[in-house]
């Protein structure tokens, strides 16, 4: 495979399509967006991830033009758009509630934006047909929104917002109303459409799995601030804080203090009467500094006997087993009271499982399995 990696954010030559410069948005005295700076590049699929109320919708509404930032500038293709009204912006938004016009047919809904610009009737026809084909809605063109299913409505909303070929498409929790299976199908459909049309997508979601699936980069937000922006695998493998590690997927956090013991290697004192742990990190830590070791459950091995040559091994008792079908998560209580989660694939039938409740087991992981975090 010699496909060029899509990483415009690593290319200093590349100019961002969207540039948020020190944006602050206050509602009264409440700070919804707090001095936020981000860049979004052309053809990106940029996901905003964060808990409810952290300001995702507000950020998106500022891009669409429905909210004005209290401070800061927003550049779209190099131009300040803060004072441009929504109807003059080269962005389109797919609303959380879809906001389909109930009095218009699917066809007219999709044509709505096109009719607002000076476009020949034949061209509008062609464009609407194209959008219907893209979203596989041809048979439903004459129906009204209330005569189609939730998944179809979602596709109409997408087709309508894509019809004007915006530079940036904003999707606010587009799959919130869909059930899990339909969600997954739609995620791939979205990625497919994004690739086909080459539009830059910005998607808001509070579903981390969804963000990981679709996004080229994920921005994790909290309290109006961006905590980390990185590719999904970087976010998962090298979170920059306990907050991000905890927010994305399942994680074990062990608190301790560091002592350097070689190049990029640290020993972590974490409990009295327990051997220190070892972890690698290219972030510098000073001796005696407080730290958090974050380890994903699937990187923790579970064995009946003490494993041989391994950097970290601790003994504990199985407290709980969560059976998830293909895998099981074992909750193991260490003598210190700390509970560590370890995941193992269920390669055997459940009746022949090697460990059960109250069994004493060994947990082990390598020095590179965890991430050492300062906060």
């Amino acid at each position, binding site marked *: 495979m010699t496909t060029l990696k899509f990483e415009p954010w690593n290319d200093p030559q590349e100019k961002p399509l969207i540039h948020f410069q020190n944006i602050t948005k206050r509602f009264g005295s409440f700070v919804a967006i707090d001095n936020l700076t981000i860049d979004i590049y052309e053809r990106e699929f940029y996901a905003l991830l964060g808990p409810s109320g952290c300001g995702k919708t507000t950020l998106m509404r500022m891009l669409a*033009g429905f909210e004005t930032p209290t401070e800061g500038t927003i550049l779209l293709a190099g131009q300040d758009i803060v004072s441009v009204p929504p109807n003059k912006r080269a*962005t389109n938004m797919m*609303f959380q509630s879809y906001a*389909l*016009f109930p*009095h218009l047919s699917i066809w007219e809904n999709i044509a709505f934006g096109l009719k607002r610009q000076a476009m020949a009737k034949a061209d509008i026809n062609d464009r609407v047909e194209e959008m219907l084909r893209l979203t596989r809605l041809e048979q439903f063109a004459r129906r009204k929104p209330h005569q189609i299913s939730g998944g179809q409505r979602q596709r109409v909303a997408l087709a309508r917002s894509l019809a004007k070929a915006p530079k940036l498409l904003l999707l606010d929790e587009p799959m919130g109303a869909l059930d899990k299976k339909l969600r997954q199908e739609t995620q791939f459909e979205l990625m497919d459409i994004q690739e086909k049309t080459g539009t830059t997508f910005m998607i808001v979601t509070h579903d981390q799995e969804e963000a990981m699936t679709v996004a080229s980069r994920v921005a994790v937000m909290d309290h109006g601030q961006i905590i980390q922006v990185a590719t999904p695998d970087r976010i998962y493998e090298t979170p920059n804080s306990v907050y991000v590690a905890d927010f994305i997927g399942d994680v074990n956090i062990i608190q301790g203090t560091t002592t350097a013991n070689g190049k990029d290697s640290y020993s972590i004192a974490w409990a009295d009467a327990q051997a220190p742990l070892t972890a690698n990190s290219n972030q510098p830590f000073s001796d005696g500094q407080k730290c958090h070791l974050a380890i994903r459950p699937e990187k923790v091995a579970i064995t009946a006997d003490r494993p041989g040559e391994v950097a970290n091994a601790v003994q504990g008792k199985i407290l709980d087993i969560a059976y998830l079908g293909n895998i099981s998560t074992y909750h193991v209580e260490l003598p210190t009271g700390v509970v560590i989660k370890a995941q193992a694939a269920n390669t055997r039938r459940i009746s022949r499982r090697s460990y059960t409740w109250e069994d004493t087991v060994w947990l082990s992981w390598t020095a590179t399995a965890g991430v050492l975090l300062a906060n």
Partner: protein
Amino acid sequence: MRRFLLIAPPYAWLLLLFLTPFAIVVKISLSDIALAIPPYVPKFSWDEGIWAYLNQLDFENFIFLTQDNLYWKAYLSSFKIAAISTALTLLVGYPIAYGMTRVPSEWRPTLMMLVILPFWTSFLIRVYAWMGILSNEGYLNQLLLWTGIIDTPLTILNTNTAVYIGIVYTYLPFMILPIYSALERLDDSLIEAAEDLGCSRLTAFWLVTIPLSKTGIIAGCFLVFIPALGEFVIPSLLGGSNSLMIGKVLWEEFFSNRDWPVASAVAVILLLLLVIPIVLFQRNQQNQQEADQ
């Protein structure tokens, strides 16, 4: 059986309070005027039997209505006045209803209250109050003279203008309430979606808000038009002799001329004319209910 019990009361109500009086009015309209109590013949008597009685009824009065210009002119003029006042009520009522949905929601019950408040006083007293406002020496003229906008009093009372003012004032709540309820259900994100797709505020209003409040507008218009068409108190108190409305003609036939048969014929025709807008109104309500589901 339960179904029957459930629908029986409204039908009994309808039969008792609408169809029976209507049948009596139809019967009188087919009779002849007479100096008697009640002032019409024939009277039903058991001796002569039902056939002899029915044979004496005829359509004379209805034919009379077509012969005297007064009646069709009154119908036409009522229609015109009702139509114009309905349009004016819509022009005044829509912005009020729209404004009510734009204020913070904790204000809405208060505003709603203010809209309904006039109903707490007698309708007649309120119309009399308008006489005091609109007459040549009335408050309106005094105010305009005092501010120097005019130097001779305007003649408003006893003109059609006063009738329009009276109808708009009286029926405004009937226009506001259905429009308000339609606008209140309107999702704000639809307007934002329209703007996002390239509409200015005004086009978004025209292309989204108006069509989506259509059922409210239609309901409001019928609720004003139907009673305004047969309105009697407002034209007789505010319109004086200058305004010709069928409700007033009806009243005069009954009480001044004591010609009950002709008055009844006028009423029957008015009712038949009203059936059309009432049926249309029902259709509109039904469509809305279907759309809501």
